[in-house]
């Protein structure tokens, strides 16, 4: 990456150019396209926490929920403050996306601070617990629709905004971890004790990773809320977190390109499996199995861990560490 900034500009320009042609796309494919973008943002952001910094988090959907709900609340409440024209409501939408990201980042700070004292398995459970608490709070918050879900957002999310954020997220994370400052993340992952002995503030890096990861997940949540126009607490449950974790693990922890690829594959795979279940010439059980993608995911996880724990495209600094 010689001129990352130029690449970023080119990528955003490409998004803008491509967005002129998305009008004619079949709505089903358009939906998949946007979902892919949102999943890439989620996977890349979790990769910063899990892949680069080595902190296993099972609560990424919780941050997404915070972003989705706070941005949706903002556009629902302040959507027409600046007027009803498209630029006015669009401006509010962009501010709300950012605000949703900030809210999620605040939640990330809240999770990151206790994470200082925990590692591995405990951290996984605590992040899972946090996302359950977030879900519980939303389920009890009347202004957020409680258990009925929240709807009525204007569909502002389009191809351009989604992939512009994708480009920014990938650019931001790659430049961060490849900077001198960012090698602290890798140091924490490779050997926390050694990193600490070398004078690296491991706590700061861990919290920073959580906050940045949560911010991006929050923005992804905002994009999602303003694309689907309806959000429900159960949409951000444990299984959503697992979906994101599977993307990171399949792609290979610490490999941004691999994780992006895995996000694409794992978004298309269920749709593909759905068509497989329509092929009536296949035996019944095969079709049933194809419909239940989670069975395949779980087998994929187990087999991957047994045979290639570094993921399909992982570089494997991760496993090189101490045994036990």
């Amino acid at each position, binding site marked *: 990456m010689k001129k990352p900034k130029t690449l970023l500009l080119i990528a955003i320009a490409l998004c803008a150019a491509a967005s002129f042609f998305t009008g004619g796309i079949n709505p089903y494919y358009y939906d998949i396209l946007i979902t892919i973008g949102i999943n890439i943002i989620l996977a890349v952001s979790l990769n910063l926490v899990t892949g680069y910094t080595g902190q296993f988090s099972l609560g990424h959907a919780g941050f997404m929920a915070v972003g989705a709900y706070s941005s949706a609340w903002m556009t629902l409440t302040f959507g027409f403050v600046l007027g009803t024209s498209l630029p006015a409501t669009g401006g509010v939408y962009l501010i709300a996306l950012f605000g949703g990201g900030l809210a999620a980042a605040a939640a990330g700070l809240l999770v990151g601070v*206790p994470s200082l004292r925990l590692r591995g398995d405990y951290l996984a459970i605590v992040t899972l617990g946090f996302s359950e608490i977030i879900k519980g709070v939303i389920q009890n918050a009347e202004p957020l629709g409680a258990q009925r879900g929240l709807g009525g957002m204007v569909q502002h999310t389009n191809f351009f905004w989604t992939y512009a954020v994708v480009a920014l997220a990938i650019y931001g994370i790659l430049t961060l971890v490849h900077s001198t400052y960012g090698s602290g993340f890798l140091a924490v992952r490779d050997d926390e004790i050694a990193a600490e002995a070398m004078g690296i503030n491991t706590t700061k890096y861990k919290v920073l990773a959580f906050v940045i990861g949560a911010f991006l997940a929050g923005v992804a949540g905002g994009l999602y809320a303003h694309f689907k126009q309806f959000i429900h607490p159960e949409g951000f449950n444990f299984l959503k977190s697992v979906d994101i974790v599977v993307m990171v693990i399949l792609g290979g922890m610490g490999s941004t390109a691999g994780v992006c690829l895995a996000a694409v594959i794992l978004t298309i795979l269920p749709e593909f499996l759905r068509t497989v279940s329509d092929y009536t010439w296949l035996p019944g059980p095969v079709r049933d199995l194809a419909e239940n993608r989670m069975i395949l995911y779980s087998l994929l996880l*187990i087999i991957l861990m047994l045979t290639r724990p570094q993921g399909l495209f992982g570089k494997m600094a991760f496993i090189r560490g101490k045994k036990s």
Partner: protein
Amino acid sequence: MIEFLQQLINGLSQGAIYALIALGYTMVFGVLRFINFAHGDIYMLGAFAGFYTAPKLLSLTGGGPSYGGAALVLVAAMALCAAAGVIIERLCYRPLRAQPRLTVLIAAIGVSLFLENGGQFFFGADPQAFPEIIADSAIELPASWGEFASLTLTIGQLIVIGSTIVLLAALRTIVKYTRTGMAMRALSLNPLAASLMGVNTDAVISFTFAIGSALAGAAGILTSIQQPSIDPLMGINAGLKAFVAAVLGGIGNIPGAALGGVIIGVLEALVVGYINPTYRDPLVFAVLILVLLFKPSGLLGKAEREKV
């Protein structure tokens, strides 16, 4: 006061279930230092093992609900779960024993997801009615107890609490007074030293999984006596709560797991009774986070230092 006692009774019988599951977490953590994420789903398997074996076993003892038949169902479910636990350890965890803990943890999450979704695939996703293996009814309390006579206490609750006490006593005997139990304790102190002293580590680990899974299977049956609606995802929530219980009591500590289970059960009943049922799950996780923040070693556990 009466209402408080009532919640206490309800909480105690639910807490007994959590305690049984928590023991499995804590024992596996004791010998292998990892969280068996799939443990809650073994509890689900126990309930389904009972669901499928109960009609056959009950017909052996005369057909209707009976204590003998229920005991047979309990034993069958425990045996099946023990086998499942041993097989899972053998296939998924043993090959990864030399790998970093994160790899094993991810594999365990994979096993858990597989059991949940495989369960939905094979058993059906809809809740099923667990057969009545014991005629459950409220016990008439003598009128001479005054206002306490208005308490509701069911036979099912008594059986749950009673069976839990028996199982805990049996576990304590095994761990304290048998050679295998001694080997388990040795392994949790120092695996390398234990193997040098001639402990067959693989066999002891298999045995630990068998015992822990059998207890979870028993919990599955005991739950179904009280709440006869079972589904393949019932293990997620119960498993997480039991894990919190194990951490609260001090993970790796057997009496701690039992104590933590009872505390979580009672706490939950009080929240449901006095605050708001929807806060039940968030509260349990809040307890977990508070424990990990302020006393990570749990109520009865010993702090462990990270060695370089």
